[in-house]
């Protein structure tokens, strides 16, 4: 029963929705034409839809379309733009492949790419075509593609079971589920068979024989049902997403998640697919774990690789994966499920054979341990074994088993030691037999077996137990020096001896395993602690680089290097010491850096590379790329190790970011200091220059005021001194302002203010120069407030007015006008004088330039250069043009913004 609080939308979900929408807005849309088998007309349907969009004016480009020689389909291609494929050399042949980079460069609005499940030739950036499409979508390009039901990863084995034909090219279900639209292309089985008979269905030559089995009516009907059902599931998913979207009472169950257990058996893949399908149907998150027990640890390298490959498959299908080292599978699975709040377990059914009648199946064990957790057992199929092996050997090239040889030799040595110990104990006990009871001799043997179990492991202990029983029988039990036994009770002794030996061996070996697991954990924690401590002390990039490389070498036995971006965002290699074994491909590294995704070994992108590239993502942005090449490559496939490496990468990224900010802070300090110095220098200069000028102006003016009055000639001289001193003062002001602006040390005192005011004060300041000119002011009354530094804009206006008065004959008219143009305020000062020399309109803004070369007009051409510097510091523009009807016109613009509300309300309240 929904209470009000339950029907309220979950804020976390809403937040996730907003984030998703933001991401979606930039991302391209994927539409998949989905069909039950080849020949239903997916490509045709896709082309028809694309043509329609093209006719409506969309920019449609064809990436890949396979017509398979069908005329109707080929006809639809006419007039469409095609991205030319690139040819890739492969085993002596040239294969043509879709050219991803050309498509990204072309950047159409919509691109058609047939055959979503296609696998690319080795050497192309991504191994799979769906990964190419992901990249196109990320670049904001819409994609149409086609897919058959048998290529869906989670249905792959089901379809294989129905048709007896397995396909190797699969697409993860997440791609299908995350597609924005799925269009089902469907025709009845009979019609499809009809088309097949008419030769309208393309069948490749090598598959012709298989096709005979494949295109049977029963198969086709089953496939059709699968396709319909899968589409229906997706539609249901859409409905559910819509309900969450529209906040219609959430149907989300948080404790719905499920846990899939991966075992060493061949059926593990089936279990993983089953888990994935179930999770998809339940719309729940899911986990996949592998519990590594001591016996599993002794498996050959190839089988351990296969288990890791199965985990990787689970990850592809959307699972969170983990490897847990523990001796008790059931206990650790239940503990994991509880700690992650997982309410369903998916396991594979145990093999039917059992060693002992009292042995429980793992299902029963789990049921006993956790009666509240739902348990789903997936049945096994023998077919899966063969297929699974074939698949894995193709996808995961065998890794060199460097370790296994060593280990075998070590093992043999242990058995030898165990045998020698038994012989030694027998020899030592021989003289004792005369003095001690035989039961004491038995105790000595048992002690030996326990010690061997502690030192040399379970196998050696078992061998020692058997040898001990034999030796005891042969040397001590009468008749001595024969295996014959006179007294039946000794059989009991033998049995007990053997049992004690085997059990203690088993127990101590378990202890050893636990100790080793603990040691591994401690090692991981220790290495994390060490790198965190070392990085926290680093204050320079070099130190971070060195510490990272050393820590990774120590922890992973791998070569590592950091690639750091320069100011243009291009990565450059930084190796602390010349490591020749690490051949870094800067193209892959750049890709990883730009996309923020790992690439190279063990990832989806260029997995053929030997080096793994992990982007160093810090809170603000990516700080570089970590390149790692492991000597033992299996190490990097274990999820725990990858997670540890990712944690390392995060720590390194944070250290790099911290160092970056330390540098930024230092720069700011230096800049502040130099600015302070410059300001005090300019202030001192200004004071020292102005004081004598003030004296000059003042004294010259007082000359004109003294009584008795000067003669006209003397008076004229005094006035001239005064004028020149004032001009000098303006020049000094201009020079100092220019110096301040050029050095970037000007802090604009930006205020919202009416332009009218500064025009008034500029006219007032230029009053003296404009005595002989007529000035007309032409500004509308309703100009908005603009944000500028009044003093500097006044300087611009004064300079422009001074300029106009200087270069026009007395009596000319100067017009000052302003108007709003677009989102800027445009202010112009025009005159009707001789105008600017043609072609010099731009040059007048250069420093020390004047209109006419040989002019007698005084003044250094600094005024307009300052005008430009000031206007540009306000993000405006200044230009010189010719006024229609003769004369020059200088126009500058200031950006309009959003002025703050004036306090009109206050007036209403007052009145």
């Amino acid at each position: 029963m929904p209470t009000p609080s339950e029907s309220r939308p979950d804020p976390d979900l809403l937040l996730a929705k907003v984030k998703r929408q933001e991401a979606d807005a930039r991302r391209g849309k994927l539409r998949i034409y989905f069909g039950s088998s080849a020949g239903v007309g997916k490509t045709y349907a896709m082309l028809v839809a694309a043509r329609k969009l093209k006719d409506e004016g969309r920019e449609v480009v064809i990436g890949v379309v396979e017509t398979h020689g069908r005329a109707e389909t080929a006809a639809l291609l006419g007039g469409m733009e095609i991205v030319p494929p690139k040819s890739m050399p492969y085993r002596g042949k040239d294969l043509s492949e879709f050219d991803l980079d050309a498509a990204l460069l072309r950047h159409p609005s919509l691109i058609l790419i047939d055959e979503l499940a296609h696998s690319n030739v080795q050497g192309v950036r991504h191994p799979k075509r769906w990964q190419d499409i992901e990249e196109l979508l990320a670049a904001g390009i819409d994609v149409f593609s086609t897919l058959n039901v048998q290529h869906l990863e989670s249905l792959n084995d089901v379809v294989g079971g129905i048709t007896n034909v397995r396909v190797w090219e699969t697409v993860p279900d997440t791609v299908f589920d995350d597609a924005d639209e799925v269009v089902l292309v469907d025709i009845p089985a009979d019609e499809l068979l009809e088309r097949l008979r008419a030769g309208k269905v393309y069948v490749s030559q090598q598959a012709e024989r298989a096709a005979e089995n494949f295109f049977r009516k029963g198969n086709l009907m089953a496939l059709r049902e699968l396709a319909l059902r899968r589409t229906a599931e997706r539609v249901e998913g859409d409905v559910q997403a819509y309900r969450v979207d529209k906040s219609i009472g959430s149907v989300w169950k948080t404790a719905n998640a499920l846990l899939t257990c991966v075992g060493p058996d061949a059926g593990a893949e089936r279990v993983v697919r089953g888990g994935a399908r179930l999770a998809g149907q339940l719309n729940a998150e899911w986990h996949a774990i592998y519990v590594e027990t001591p016996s599993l640890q002794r498996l050959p390298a190839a089988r351990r690789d296969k288990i890791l490959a199965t985990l990787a498959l689970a990850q592809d299908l959307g699972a969170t994966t983990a490897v847990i080292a523990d001796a008790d599978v059931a206990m650790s699975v239940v503990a994991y499920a509880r700690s992650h709040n997982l309410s369903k377990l998916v396991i594979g059914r145990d093999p039917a054979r059992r060693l002992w009648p009292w042995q429980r199946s793992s299902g029963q064990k789990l049921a006993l341990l956790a009666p509240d957790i739902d348990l789903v057992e997936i049945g096994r199929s023998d077919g899966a074994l063969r297929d699974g092996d074939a698949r894995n050997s193709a996808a995961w090239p065998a890794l060199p088993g460097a370790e296994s040889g060593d280990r075998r030799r070590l093992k043999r040595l242990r058995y030898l030691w165990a045998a020698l110990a038994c012989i030694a104990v027998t020899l030592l006990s021989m003289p004792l037999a005369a003095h001690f009871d035989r039961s004491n001799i038995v105790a000595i043997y048992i002690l030996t077996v326990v010690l061997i179990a502690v030192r040399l492991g379970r196998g050696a202990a078992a061998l020692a137990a058997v040898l001990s029983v034999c030796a005891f029988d042969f040397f001590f039990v009468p008749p001595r020096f024969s295996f014959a036994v006179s007294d039946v009770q000794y059989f009991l002794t033998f049995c007990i001896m053997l049992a004690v030996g085997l059990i203690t061996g088993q127990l101590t070996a378990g202890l050893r395993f636990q100790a080793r697991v603990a040691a591994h954990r401690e090692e991981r924690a220790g290495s994390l602690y060490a790198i965190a401590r070392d990085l926290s002390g680093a204050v320079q990039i070099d130190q971070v680089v060195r510490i990272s490389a050393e820590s990774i070498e120590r922890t992973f036995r791998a070569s590592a290097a950091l690639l750091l971006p320069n100011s243009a965002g291009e990565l450059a290699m930084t190796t602390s010491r010349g490591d020749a074994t690490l051949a870094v491909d800067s193209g892959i590294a750049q890709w990883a850096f730009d996309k923020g995704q790992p690439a190279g070994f063990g990832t989806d992108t260029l997995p053929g590379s030997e080096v793994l590239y992990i982007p160093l993502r810090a809170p603000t942005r990516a700080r570089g790329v970590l390149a790692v090449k492991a000597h033992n490559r299996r190490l990097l496939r274990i999820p725990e190790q990858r997670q540890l490496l990712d944690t390392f990468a995060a720590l390194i990224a944070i250290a790099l970011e911290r160092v970056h900010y330390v540098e930024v802070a230092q720069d700011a300090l230096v800049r502040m200091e130099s600015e302070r110095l410059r300001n005090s220098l300019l202030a001192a200069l200004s004071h020292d220059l102005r004081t004598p000028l003030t004296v000059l102006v003042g004294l010259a003016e007082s000359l004109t005021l003294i009584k008795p009055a000067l003669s006209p000639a003397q008076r004229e001289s005094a006035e001239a001194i005064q004028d020149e001193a004032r001009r000098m003062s303006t020049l000094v002001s201009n020079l100092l302002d220019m110096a301040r602006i050029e050095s970037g040390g000007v802090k604009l005192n930006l205020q919202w203010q009416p332009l009218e005011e500064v025009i008034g004060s500029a006219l007032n300041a230029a009053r003296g120069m404009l005595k002989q000119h007529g000035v007309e002011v032409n500004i509308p009354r309703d100009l908005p407030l603009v944000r500028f530094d009044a003093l500097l804009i006044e300087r611009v206006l004064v300079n422009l007015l001074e300029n106009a008065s200087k270069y026009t004959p007395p009596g000319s008219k100067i017009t000052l006008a302003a108007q709003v143009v677009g989102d800027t305020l445009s202010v112009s000062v025009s005159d009707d004088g001789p105008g600017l020399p043609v072609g010099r309109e731009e040059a007048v803004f250069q420093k020390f330039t004047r209109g006419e070369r040989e002019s007698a007009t005084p003044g250094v051409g600094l005024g307009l250069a300052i005008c430009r510097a000031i206007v540009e510091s306000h993000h405006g523009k200044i230009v010189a043009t010719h006024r229609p009807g003769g004369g020059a016109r200088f126009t500058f613009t200031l950006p309009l913004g959003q002025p703050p509300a004036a306090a009109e309300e206050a007036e209403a309240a007052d009145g």
Partner: protein
Amino acid sequence: MAEPLPVAILVEDERQIRRFVRTALEAEGWNVHETDTLRQGLIDAGTRKPDLIILDLGLPDGDGMEFLRDLRAWSNVPVIVLSARVGEEDKIGALDAGADDYLTKPFGVGELLARVRAASRRCRDTGAGLGSVFEFGDIKVDLSLRTVHRGAVAIHLTPIEYRLLALLIANSGKVLTHRQILREVWGPTHTEDGHYVRVYMGHLRQKLENDPAQPKHILTETAVGYRLVQTARD
């Protein structure tokens, strides 16, 4: 002479500037005392009962702002500040600290004397109290009736505009900083909203000035504040 000459104190470290300022003031009938340090200036201000102080802000022996604050604690004598153009903040600070007016170097003798006359007149007027009618240009403000007329035509002002005008009239000839105007008209909580003043000053100019773009009475002191001038220049 029945009345003693008014006393001016000139605090300035540059001898030549002192010389011409002194000459100009003496020609106007002032008794001028010169000093080149703030310390001595403060002592003179206490002992000589000045009618006017001219203070250079750029003295080597201390902060002119400190001088003003000290002085304003016990005296209302008019103070005219001399400053270089770069120091707009210094000027605003000095005006806020109680200076009456400022001059930017280099300044002419004519400008100086005009400021001196305005300051001493204002000082006299405050002593006598303002008349109830104030006139500038062709505008006539009756402070007791709270009416404003251009010639015979009544001009309607909003309450804020009127308060602004009354403030300008009360400080006629003196520079008021944006901060001072905001505090007096809008109250102490609005001292950062500089655009209020500019907008209303614009309204006032449109109603009272013949050419609002080239005002004759309500003058802008760029980046510092405003000043009401009763008798227009030129």
